[in-house]
C-alpha cells in the first residue's frame, strides 16, 4: 500500500517537471530522489518511473531496434523455411510444413559433401597459415630500432586491407594470368607457365596467398598494441636471470600477448565456416569448383541462381549452427583452460 503511494508521488513529481517544459526539468536531482525510494520497490513497479526518467534515452533506441528486428532477427526467424515449403511471392516464412525434407535432401547430396569438405579444408588452411603470421610480423616489427622504417613498413602493409574484394580479385587475375608476373618468374627459372585459374588444385594456394596479402599487416595492430602493455621490468628481471633475446621473447613477450592471441583465435574459429564467400564468388569458375566451391557459394548457386530457396536455407542454417557451436565451444574451452574468454 505504502509502496504504491510512493510510486504515485514520484510519478507526479516527474510529470510536473515534464509538463513545465524541458528546460525546467533537472535530471540529476530527480535521479537522486527516485533512486532513494527505488530500493524498497519491486522491479516491475519502478518500471514506469524509470521510463519517465529516461524516456528521451529510450526514444533513441527506437530506430536501431527496428533495424535489428527487421534486418537481423526477422531473417533469423526466416530460417524456418528450411522446414517449410516456400513459394516465391508467398509469405517469407513459407506456406506448409515439410519437416526434415530439405535436410535429408542435402545429406544425400554428394555435391554438398564435396563443398563441405572444401569448406573445412580452406577454413583449416586459413586458420593454420594465416592466424600465426600477424603475430610473427608484429614480433619482427617490434625488433626494429628505426621508428621511421617501422612506420613505413606498417603503412605499406596496412594498405591492402582497404581494398575492395573486387579489386583484390582483379589483382589476383592479373598476377596469375598466363602472362602475369608469377608465370613470368616461373618461366625465368625454367618452369612451365601454369594456368592457375583453370587448375583447381592451385586454388587453395591462390586463395590463401591473397588472404595473407590482404590481412597480415592489418592483423598486427592489436598485437603491437598488446606488446606495448608488457612491463619493461619483466625484461630486466629476465635479463638478470641470464635470459638471452630469444628466451626473453619466448618467456616474456609471448605470454604477454597471449590474451590477445586467444581472443583473436576464438573470433577466427567463429568465422571458420564462412570462409571468404565474396572472394571465392569473384575468383572461382566451373573449372575450379572441385576445390574452390564452399558451402556459402554452393548455397548461393542453389538458392539465388536456381531459386531453390528452402533447400539453400537448410544448408545455410546448418552452416550457421556449426559456426555458432564452434565459437561457443572455443570460448568455453578457453575460459576453462586459460581463463581468457570473449564474455
Amino acid at each position, binding site marked *: 500500500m505504502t509502496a504504491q503511494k510512493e510510486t504515485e508521488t514520484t510519478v507526479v513529481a516527474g510529470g510536473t517537471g515534464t509538463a513545465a517544459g524541458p528546460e525546467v*526539468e*533537472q535530471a*540529476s536531482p530527480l535521479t537522486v530522489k527516485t533512486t532513494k525510494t527505488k530500493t524498497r520497490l519491486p522491479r516491475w513497479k519502478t518500471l514506469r518511473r524509470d*521510463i519517465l526518467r*529516461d524516456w*528521451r*534515452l*529510450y526514444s*533513441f*533506441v527506437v*530506430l536501431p*531496434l527496428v*533495424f*535489428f528486428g527487421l*534486418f537481423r*532477427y526477422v*531473417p533469423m*526467424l*526466416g*530460417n524456418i523455411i528450411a522446414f517449410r515449403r516456400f513459394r516465391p511471392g508467398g509469405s*517469407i516464412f513459407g506456406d506448409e510444413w515439410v519437416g526434415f525434407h530439405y535436410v535429408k535432401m542435402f545429406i544425400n547430396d554428394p555435391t554438398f559433401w564435396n563443398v563441405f569438405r572444401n569448406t573445412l579444408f580452406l577454413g583449416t588452411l586459413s586458420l593454420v597459415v594465416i592466424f600465426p603470421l600477424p603475430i610473427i*610480423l608484429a614480433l*619482427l616489427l617490434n625488433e626494429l630500432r628505426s*621508428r621511421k622504417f617501422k612506420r*613505413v613498413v606498417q603503412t*605499406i*602493409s596496412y594498405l591492402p586491407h582497404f*581494398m575492395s574484394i*573486387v*579489386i583484390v*580479385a*582483379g*589483382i589476383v587475375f*592479373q*598476377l596469375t594470368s598466363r*602472362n602475369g608476373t608469377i608465370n*613470368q618468374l616461373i618461366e625465368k627459372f625454367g618452369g612451365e607457365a601454369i594456368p592457375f585459374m583453370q587448375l583447381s588444385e592451385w586454388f587453395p594456394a591462390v586463395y590463401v596467398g591473397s588472404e595473407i*596479402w590482404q590481412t597480415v599487416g592489418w592483423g598486427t*595492430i592489436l598485437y603491437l*598494441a598488446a*606488446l*606495448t602493455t*608488457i612491463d*619493461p621490468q619483466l*625484461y630486466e628481471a629476465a*635479463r638478470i636471470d641470464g635470459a638471452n*633475446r630469444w628466451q626473453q621473447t619466448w618467456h616474456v613477450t609471448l605470454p604477454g600477448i597471449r590474451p590477445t592471441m586467444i581472443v583473436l583465435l576464438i573470433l577466427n574459429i567463429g568465422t571458420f565456416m564462412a570462409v571468404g564467400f*565474396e572472394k571465392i*564468388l*569473384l575468383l572461382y*569458375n*566451373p573449372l575450379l569448383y572441385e576445390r574452390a566451391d564452399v558451402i556459402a557459394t554452393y*548455397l548461393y548457386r542453389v*538458392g*539465388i541462381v536456381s531459386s531453390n*530457396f528452402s533447400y539453400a*536455407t537448410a544448408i*545455410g542454417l546448418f552452416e550457421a549452427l556449426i559456426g*555458432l557451436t564452434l565459437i*561457443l565451444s572455443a570460448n568455453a574451452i578457453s575460459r576453462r583452460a586459460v581463463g581468457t574468454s570473449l564474455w
Partner: protein
Amino acid sequence: MVATNPESVTDIGELIEQTGPSRGIKDTRGYRIFRWINGTFLIVMMFVMIYPFINLIAQAFSSEGYINSGQVNLWPRGFNLDTFQVVMGNSMFWRNYGNTVIYTTVATAIAMVLTTTYAYVISRRNLRGRNFFIGIAVFTMFFNGGLIPNYVLIKSLGFTNTIWAIVLPQAISVFNLLVMKSFFENFPEELEEAAAIDGLTTYGIFFRIVLPLSKAVLATMVLFYAVAFWNSWFPAFLYMDSAELYPVTVFLRNLLSAATTADSLQGGGADNLTQVASNVKAVTMVLTVLPIICLYPFIQKYFVSGVMLGSVKQ
C-alpha cells in the same frame, strides 16, 4: 579525457619504442646478424606487398600488346593515356561511379545516426534494459539469418532496384557500435552532470555536449563506414537488375568476369563483351581505388585508433 582521446593511442610506433626485449649495452653477434636478416626480410616483404599496386599502375599506362605478351611489370611499356580517355569517356562508368558516391554518402549518414544514438544509449551504465540492448546487438555478431532469408526479406519489402537494399540492411555494424560504446563509456561523467544541473535534457546533453566533444571518434566512424560502403559490391550485385543502378565495384566485377572463362554466375551489362582488354581493366581498377589511395595517408591513423579503441574489453 586523456585516455579516451584517440589521438593518444595513435602513435603505436612511439609506444613500441619504449618496450620490447630490453636492449643490451652491447648486442651479441647472433643478434646483430638477426637484425640484418630481419631488416632485409621486411624490405623484401614490403616490396612484395606493394608490387601488385605498382604492377597495376604500370599496366594502366601501358598499351595492350605489351601487357598481353607479358612485358609490363614495374614500369609502363608503350606509355599512353588513351586507355584513361576510353574509360573516362564511358558514360556508364561515370554513372556507376556517381552511384557509388550517392550510395556511400546516404548509407554512411544513416549508419552514423543509428550507430551513434544506439551506442550512446548502451553506454549509460544505470539505464534499465541496457544489457538487453547490448545482448540484442552482440548476438547478431555470432548468428545471423543467412543469405537466403535476407534475400527473401529484401525482395518482399520491395527494396529490389532501390537504394534501400544497399543502405539499410548494413546500417549498423556491431563492431563499430562497440567501438563507439567504449568511447562514450569513458566520457567524463562530471561534464554531463554539470550540463544536467544547468538544465539540459538528455537531448541537449547529447547534441550540445557529447557530440561536439566526440569529433575524433565520429570522424573515425565515418571513415570506417564510408570505406566499407565504397568497397561493397555484393548487395548491389544481388539486388540491382539494371546496369544503370550499379555501383562502380559491380561495373568492375562485370569487366573481370567477362574475361574469365565460362562464367556461370548471373551477370550484368558486361556479359555481351567476350574479352575486355587488360589495360581497360587496370585503368578501371586504378580509378576505383584512387579516392582511397589518395586519402589513405591521412586516414590511416584514425583507423588504427578505431581498431584499438574497439579492442578495449568491456
